[in-house]
């Protein structure tokens, strides 16, 4: 059985900026909205169908260590709030392949950001949710 263990190297770029060394968690949610196509005569609910294409409703959630240094987390993220951008995530930083696919979310919107998220004695982290946009998968 082949499983995937994330040790250290998933690649995360936000607006083309590589934030892998600040990132501790990343979740890609690939979602198509569920449209009901149940009709009279059906005995069970149905969703979708060959002629029904619903909208994607994707999200990417990332957790980053906060850093206020030049070109680091805050400088990269603050200006993206309220606008759309592109994110690219890969399971490892190796070249894109069938076993290391890249997921690109184009036109993702960042609605909120917490510039300060501070607790005594803890490293500051921020969690960002990018919503919307079209998700594509590349294997080469």
């Amino acid at each position: 059985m082949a499983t995937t263990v994330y040790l250290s190297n998933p690649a995360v770029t936000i607006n083309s900026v590589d934030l892998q060394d600040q990132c501790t968690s990343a979740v890609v949610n690939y979602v198509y909205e569920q449209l009901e196509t149940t009709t009279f005569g059906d005995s069970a609910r149905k969703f979708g169908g060959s002629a029904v294409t619903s909208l994607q409703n994707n999200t990417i959630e990332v957790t980053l260590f906060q850093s206020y240094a030049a070109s680091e987390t805050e400088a990269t993220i603050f200006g993206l709030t309220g606008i759309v951008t592109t994110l690219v995530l890969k399971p490892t930083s190796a070249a894109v392949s069938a076993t290391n696919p890249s997921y690109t979310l184009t036109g993702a919107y960042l609605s909120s950001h917490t510039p300060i998220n501070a607790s005594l004695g803890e490293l500051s982290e921020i969690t960002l949710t990018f919503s919307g946009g079209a998700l594509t998968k590349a294997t080469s």
Partner: protein
Amino acid sequence: MTTYIVTSDRLNGLKRGDTIETADLAGFNIEHLVEAGHLSTQKATKSAKPITTEQKD
């Protein structure tokens, strides 16, 4: 088409000092990359005449 100079070590696949054009940044927010210090629109300037120093014994 505008040419940008990479000014940080964080741009994906690029090194500080590399140049990149608008077309290569399609889909990304270039204005913000400039504001965040990852790119500069300033043209690379030639360094002054190299100064050679001879070591005297």
